[in-house]
């Protein structure tokens, strides 16, 4: 277990390490350019252009500027570290306002915000120093005292400098908040492959524009905040440093003080500078991290075995590696006949199609997981988000049966491949299946899903199946159509306790059916009690408007959450279907033929379920209008991409194989579906 983790860490470092290094290096290299531009623009003087240019040339080489540059490099480095630490290939989408609130006060996010605020202050200090003029220092000689006696110069607090520092901190904090709210940590993979330089050049205008506009809003917010709360930090600074405000000057937390155009302009410029440098670091990391990586299909040396594509797909690597591997699979299936040949090849001693088996198995597992997830979501929707709360004995029994199923499955692991797939469509149709059928059908082969024990999925399925019979046991308000609190569309509550149950069981891998069953009964009492409490609290709270504001779920968000990792499935669909299509002429040993029925069955089942999903009343059938801004919102529309590529994948297979598909073993229902695809009627 430990060794595997180490291996994966090594792999991650190998794949991602140089990308991070290169992106940081480039963003640091671009820093002098930004700084030079900032210095020039901040000292802009349109009336004396030649003097302005020569002055700004001189300013670039001052010791101040160079020191600031070094300091800013450190800032960029820290920002990049946070980018690397916080990136995610699967966006986390808060389903309700409470969840969003929870994310904001999560310790991780608090650290993020605090560090960004400090970094913002540092950038603002550098900007103030480089701007010179009245902003340069915190303490300046008082204007009033100068005339009195030249000998002792009183130092006063420079409120402009303080304002700039505070606005920097505020902007850093806002950046951190926006980073969270806009899911800027999400790494969207590009729809076409392009060279990094071209991608950067393409995004640069949008980045600059976005930063300028964003900075404008931030300046407005800073002004408002300072107007109301500006006296607090000023008083504090005065108290600690024994500097007093200049009595001759207007204090800045008044309207006349704030309406200083030069102050606003420089604050705005400082904001632009901060946002551009940070966004560049973020953009470069995004571009480098999502660049296609070339995984070898067959290892040339034995040391490379861990890095080859089938191995990576089958192990459970960090998600980014898995994404890159699937992207590579898609690319190789599309562009590289040589590598496709390697996929279809047989192992040297033995003659097994290990590469193909591994790749197809992983893809099919992904599709089955998704099918599973969608079925559960649909059943939850069908029962109106009602979550089953089984009695203790019931839960125990279902646990026992599912455990039994697990052991059964383990013993029949070898032959579990194709036979039982045919159960899936019937399962989709009627949720009232006998328990026995369900447990024997190969439902829960979900490795790598968030709820990773196979027993879990099956169990959840059983729970949902049972729900119509036991609905009357529950408290009536759960049945009611109305505000729901803790149910996400896939049954949040049931997931939570099931997850607990599951992790509990996972630590005892099947030893004896009875023992596990007994142990599982024990916690279930607590859960039923907890659930009862939950129901009561929920019914109490759902009557309060303010609480409802926080708890009410956005239906769109919960759908987005289901499909948040669908990019994987899209690539798997494209890769697998292209490989199958290519196998028509390129597969010399016929290795693909053996899995063709399973692939068709899985794809058609998934197609059925996806179709059904889009027919649900709350699912919109069209992607929402996206604004062409810097922030990528492609995760919001992934489900539409999935639907399209699923159809294209099936069509790709049917158009390639044509009439030959009639000879493939599929159920009658699927045969009918296939015929429709063959006639282009879908």
């Amino acid at each position, binding site marked *: 277990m430990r060794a595997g983790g180490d291996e994966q860490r090594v792999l991650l470092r190998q794949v991602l390490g140089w990308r991070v290094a290169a992106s940081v290096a480039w963003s640091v290299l671009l820093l002098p350019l930004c700084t030079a531009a900032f210095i020039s623009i901040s000292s802009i003087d349109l009336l004396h252009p030649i003097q302005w240019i020569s002055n700004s040339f001189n300013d670039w080489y001052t010791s101040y500027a160079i020191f600031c540059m070094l300091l800013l490099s450190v800032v960029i480095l820290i920002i990049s570290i946070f980018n690397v630490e916080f990136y995610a290939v699967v966006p986390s989408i808060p389903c309700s306002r409470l969840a969003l609130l929870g994310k904001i006060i999560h310790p991780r996010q608090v650290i993020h915000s605090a560090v960004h605020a400090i970094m913002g202050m540092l950038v603002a200090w550098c900007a103030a120093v480089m701007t010179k003029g009245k902003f340069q220092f915190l303490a300046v000689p008082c204007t009033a005292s100068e005339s009195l006696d030249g000998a002792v110069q009183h130092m006063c607090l420079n409120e402009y400098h303080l304002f700039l520092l505070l606005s920097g901190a505020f902007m850093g904090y806002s950046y951190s908040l926006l980073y969270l709210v806009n899911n800027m940590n999400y790494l969207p993979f590009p729809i076409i492959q392009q060279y990094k330089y071209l991608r950067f050049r393409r995004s640069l205008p949008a980045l600059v524009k976005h930063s300028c506009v964003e900075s404008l809003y931030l300046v407005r917010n800073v002004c408002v905040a300072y107007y109301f709360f500006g006296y607090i930090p000023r008083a504090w600074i005065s108290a600690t440093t024994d500097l007093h405000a200049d009595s001759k000057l207007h204090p800045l937390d008044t309207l006349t003080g704030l309406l200083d155009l030069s102050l606003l302009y420089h604050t705005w410029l400082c904001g632009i500078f901060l946002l551009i440098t940070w966004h560049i670091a973020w953009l470069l990391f995004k571009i480098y991290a999502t660049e296609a990586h070339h995984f070898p299909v067959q290892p040339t040396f034995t040391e490379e075995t861990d890095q080859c594509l089938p191995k990576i797909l089958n192990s459970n690597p960090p998600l980014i590696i898995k994404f890159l591997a699937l992207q590579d699979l898609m690319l190789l299936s599309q562009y590289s006949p040589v590598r496709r040949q390697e996929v279809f090849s047989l192992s040297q001693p033995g003659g097994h199609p290990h590469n193909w088996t591994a790749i197809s198995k992983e893809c099919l597992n992904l599709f089955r997981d998704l099918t599973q997830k969608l079925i559960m979501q649909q059943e939850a929707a069908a029962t109106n988000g009602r979550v089953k709360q089984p009695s203790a004995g019931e839960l125990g029994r279902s646990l026992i049966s599912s455990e039994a199923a697990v052991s059964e499955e383990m013993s029949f692991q070898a032959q579990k491949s194709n036979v039982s797939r045919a159960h899936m469509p019937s399962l989709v149709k009627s949720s009232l299946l006998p328990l026995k059928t369900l447990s024997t059908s190969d439902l829960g082969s979900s490795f790598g899903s968030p709820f990773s024990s196979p027993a879990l999925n099956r169990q959840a399925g059983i729970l949902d199946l049972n729900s119509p019979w036991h609905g009357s046991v529950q408290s009536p308000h759960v049945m009611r159509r109305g505000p729901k609190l803790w149910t996400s569309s896939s049954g949040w509550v049931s997931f939570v306790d099931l997850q607990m149950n599951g992790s509990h069981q996972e630590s005892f891998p099947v030893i004896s059916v009875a023992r596990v069953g007994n142990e599982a009964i024990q916690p279930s009492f607590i859960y039923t009690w907890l659930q009862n409490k939950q129901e009561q609290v929920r019914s109490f709270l759902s009557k309060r408007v303010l609480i409802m504001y926080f708890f009410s779920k956005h239906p769109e968000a919960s759908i987005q959450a289901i499909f948040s990792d669908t990019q994987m499935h899209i690539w798997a669909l494209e890769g697998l279907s292209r490989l199958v299509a290519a196998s028509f002429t390129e597969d010399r040993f016929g290795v693909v033929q053996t899995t063709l029925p399973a692939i068709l069955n899985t794809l058609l089942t998934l197609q059925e379920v996806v179709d059904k999903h889009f027919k649900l009343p709350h699912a919109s059938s069209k992607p929402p209008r996206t604004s062409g801004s810097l922030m990528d919102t492609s995760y919001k529309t992934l489900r539409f991409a999935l*639907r399209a590529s699923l159809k294209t994948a099936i069509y*790709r297979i049917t158009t390639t194989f044509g009439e030959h598909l009639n000879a493939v073993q599929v159920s009658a229902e699927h045969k009918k579906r296939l015929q429709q695809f063959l006639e282009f009627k*879908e």
Partner: protein
Amino acid sequence: MSQCMARCGNVWAAQRDCRRRGGRSPVDEKRLALGVGSVPVGLLSPRLPVSPFVPLQRGHDRRVLPGCGLVSSLQRGSAGAGCSIRAFAWHPHTSKFAVALLDDSIRVYNSSRSPRSLRGSPQADKALLKRRLSQRILKCCRLSPSPAASPGRTSVPAAARSCPVTAGPGPQGAPGTALTQTSATVPILKHRLQRSVAALAWKPLCASILAVACQSCVLVWHLDPTSLSTRPSSGCAQVLAHPGHSPVTSLAWAPSGEMLLSASPVDTAMLVWDVSTENCVPLQWFGGGGVTYLAWSPDGSRVLAATPSAVFRVWEAQMWTCERWPTIKGRCQTGCWSPDGSRLLFTVQGESVIYSLSFSEYSGELQGQVGGSKTASIVADLSETGFETLYGEERIGGEVHSMAWDPSGERLAAVIRGSPEAAESRTIVAVFRTRNSPVFELLPCGFLQGEPGAQPQLLAFHPCFKKGALLTVCWSTGRISHVPFFFVSAQFPGLSPRHSPVAALSSSASVREQPLFSEL
């Protein structure tokens, strides 16, 4: 051969018949039969202002595109004197096509394949098809007065050799050819934003998704192939708009169906759309203006993008880098790709020749290289030549204004526009026989001309005609005629153009043609 001669004899008989009756005959519903036959669009519905009325069209264009003479001249449909069909597109897999009319409505004609004809013997189908052939197509399309004409080249008895065999039944059931009847429902697509339609494109590997290039956006219609409604609601249309990207005049789907390219002659950026998510990536370059013509190679590896200036670009579709090709005289008018994507034929405004540009065999190893040869070579000189015919001398030849290459790579059709000075020179469709491997060959095959006064506007080949090639010509009178060419493909005997471009590509890569599974 004897069969062919007999048919050629029929050509003349039918042509005389056509002349005597004076062109247009009353339309009955059966004339809408797809596959072979002509569809006089002007007569389809009395409600639509689709008569070939030139001033109306001009005025329309001026109103919609103020001061955009460039744009309207670039719209392919309006290139001729007058036209009532703005755009035409075959569905890549089925016998279904969409026609955009002058009033910006789009009609989708579909041939329903009844199960009876699927099960029926191929012989019966063949007989039916043949009968329709002799009845229909020859009425409106007479062959050129000189059957062996080849401008500027050695004379080859093209008409005699062009149809050596009428097609035998394919190895499989050949569902594409059982075009027995047109389905009754003809969906008419209208949308608020559907203005000055310039191009249509069906999504490959998909049942019924049609992209429409409009004035301000790209509309993507999601049509239900099983639906019986004649007026799909505008809710079925997806609007793809991007600031500064208008008017859209050319479209191209990736043959794998994942991406859509759209281009405008005004916008310097060409957009790559992921249609399902409505995301787009602008592909920008500097200099050369917008894009007037797009053609994606059938193997999906390269894209031709012509600009309004004397330059065109060939993009490589993996890393999206491009090669820049300056031409000597004018802008690139049109271009078409060989089925394996290794050869590009193109024509240039102001020159009456066809150029050829060959590309290295595509394999994923050369990332980001287009791999074009150093120079383009002239493969055909189409300068004006006079022909002595039964009806006096005719002068044919000039600039090529559009071209189409059939999916098997055996026939090339080109609209040759005569020089405007010479009164007797005329616009005509010339058909060539081509071969791409081992050596490129281009031999004249014959000419097609419409009714008196009709000028060919748009050309398209049926993407999956199993028995040879089916050329569709849209005439300026609003007539659409389908002209079949029956031959056995030299490259894939018995297995002529396949359903899918992907398969066509891969089958050229390997010689193994045995089916994987025994047929039931």
